[in-house]
């Protein structure tokens, strides 16, 4: 038995959770909802075990370090953040339809980590630059933020769908009409972005401190750093537009989606399209 078994179970659990949540949304059969929740809880629990297991295994082979140091491990942690954050929101707001828009992100992260070419799943020892506690702080803070932004993007998509239903005056028993109230989605999107923004700021700061410890430069405008600050500008713009100029609804929904696109580009695009200091993440 090893961690990959648990990672596999999680991937399946998130896949089926997505299917059930989408079925709940499409067929509006309320009995399906709890199955989605149960699967999400199962997936998140096994993922917790898997991450812990992988951590333990790294000590077993004598190179012990927290499992947060390469593309594979960060993707898995990303999925975990999304799962956990979603469960919290579902519990707090008692709404399961959102799962249809959020769980697919968690599944995508797990599936991509497991099946994409060029992603090394092996536990490898840390090269000198990565041997820093700031690295752990950096990855944890960034990905909590990214998890929240994934959620916000899901909510943004949901908002746009619901809006089109409202504009077409679809009745509440249709597919799109059954989505939660526009104001509710809008409010959740905003709150989620606020939460993510705080963590993104902390992620950029811990990254800067790490760079300064390792290289003597807290900011060098390498593409990854630059894209993280671009993402930060986008969300800062979104928040200001919202609370000082009263933007809401469709515009904020779009900004939530654009912001998350920027997150994804910071995460993958920079590794695969551009080059820079952080390119260690590409293996």
């Amino acid at each position: 038995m090893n961690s990959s078994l648990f990672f596999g179970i999680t991937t399946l659990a998130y896949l089926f959770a997505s299917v059930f949540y989408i079925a709940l949304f499409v067929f509006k059969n309320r009995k399906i909802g709890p199955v989605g929740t149960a699967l999400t809880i199962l997936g998140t629990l096994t993922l917790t075990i898997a991450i812990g297991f992988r951590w333990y295994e790294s000590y077993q082979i004598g190179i012990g370090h927290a499992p947060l140091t390469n593309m594979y491990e960060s993707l898995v942690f990303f999925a975990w953040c999304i799962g956990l954050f979603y469960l919290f929101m579902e519990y707090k707001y008692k709404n399961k339809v959102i799962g249809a828009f959020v769980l697919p992100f968690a599944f995508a992260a797990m599936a991509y980590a497991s099946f994409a070419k060029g992603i090394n799943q092996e536990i490898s020892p840390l090269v000198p630059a990565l041997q820093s506690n700031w690295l752990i702080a950096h990855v944890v803070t960034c990905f909590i933020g990214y998890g929240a932004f994934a959620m916000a993007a899901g909510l943004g998509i949901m908002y746009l769908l619901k809006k089109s239903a409202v504009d077409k005056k679809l009745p509440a028993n249709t597919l799109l009409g059954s989505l939660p109230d526009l104001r509710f989605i809008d409010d959740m999107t905003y709150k989620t972005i606020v939460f993510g923004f705080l963590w993104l700021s902390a992620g950029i700061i811990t990254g800067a401190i790490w760079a300064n410890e390792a290289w003597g430069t807290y900011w060098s405008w390498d593409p990854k750093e630059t894209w993280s600050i671009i993402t930060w500008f986008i969300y800062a713009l979104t928040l200001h537009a919202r609370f000082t100029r009263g933007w809401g609804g469709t515009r904020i929904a779009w900004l939530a989606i654009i912001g998350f696109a920027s997150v994804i580009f910071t995460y993958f695009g920079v590794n695969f399209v551009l080059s820079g200091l952080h390119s260690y993440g590409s293996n």
Partner: protein
Amino acid sequence: MTTQKKNPFWALFSSVKLALFLLFILAATSIIGTVVQQNKPPQFYVEVYGPNLARLMQTLSIPDMYNSWWFMILLALFSLNLIVCSLERIPNAWRLVTMDNLATAPERLQKMGMRKAVPVQGTVSESVEKTASFLADKGWKTDRRDLENGTLLFSQKGGWTRFGVYVVHSSILIILLGAIIGSPRLANSLLGNPLFAFKGGVNIPETQQTDVIYSFLTQKPLPLGFTVRCDSFDIHYYPNGMVKDYVSILTVLENGQEVLTKKVVVNEPLIYNGITFYQSSYQPYQDFILTVKSEETGLTTTDLVPYAKQVTWKEGGARFGIINMERRGEAVSRFKIWFTDDQGEPAKFWLQPGRKAVIERPSGTYTLSAKQLYATGLQVAKDPGVWWVYIGCGLMLVGLVIAFFMSHRKIWALIREEDGKVTVLFAGSANKNKLGFEKTFTDLVEGME
């Protein structure tokens, strides 16, 4: 304020529209430098983009855009916007925090979003005492004022949180200030003192020392004011062959006196006199450091031995050298020693760096150890602004938590007698998280009923 509002400069920079515009422009232009590779030689741009586009790029400083005049202007406008916008609003925040809430008219309380009238037994003054002590028990200490037909109680929490926004905004300015203080360019051009803030590098071969480093900005030597010696440099490997650590042992000397010796690895720099030395690279040489000891006489020699060169050690009566080697990357993984005391066949054997060999010879026993010679590559920085940056970062996080998650909450209780009936009118307001406060408010009022 009204006169200032007429000033078009002030009006422009106090507008949030400008802030949105600048945030957008900063985000959009920042992309350029991630697509166009930065700080390459001019020829690179001509090859990749053609001569015409390359010339345009040079004019716009695209090859070094994050230091370009126009990007600096954007950041300056951003800062100015932030300053003016905040200055414009702080007086208002101050007013909101210090205003006399007991002067709030009863008619306004009756229109507040959060309100509840509770009929009570007893006289007005009894109810005032009861309500005040009830609220105080729940953590809301009240002020009071007698009105014509009743008494108004008021309590508030978190007024100071209205300044959280300004903590965030100042933190951004403090970070930018730190970046300015620590800028090698400005130290060079504005202060004319390149030693105030610099980034540079130096390679020090093992056993050698230096008292200058070379500025990345000007390529010129900068005097450190003290001496740094590289005692040794080593590469440690994991069993699978990956590099585990680059380790330099550095010693600081003042006037020839050793003052400090430190092991430096990536992520653990040496800091001395405000100057930080980071392990950043290394350079292997084709030379070796060989140490030979004669066990009989106790004599020792340490020599710098170039590859395939013979060393004669007269006092020890021996000759030796390195005649072959195997590499792993640039690092030598083992080498072949040739050793003779001119009695019988010379000894030839393989040795790994750092290991000791014991050689039995007709003339006695020798121990020998050898390692490849390296130069350690150090990045050297002096950044007097970094503490400003760190303080700014800390303030930003604190400010964000205050601005996002804390709110200014107010509770009024108006106790009045009308038509012989005493009622307590509760009213509440919060500048943020209204839903959360509504719950607190409802719980409070229900507790009173």
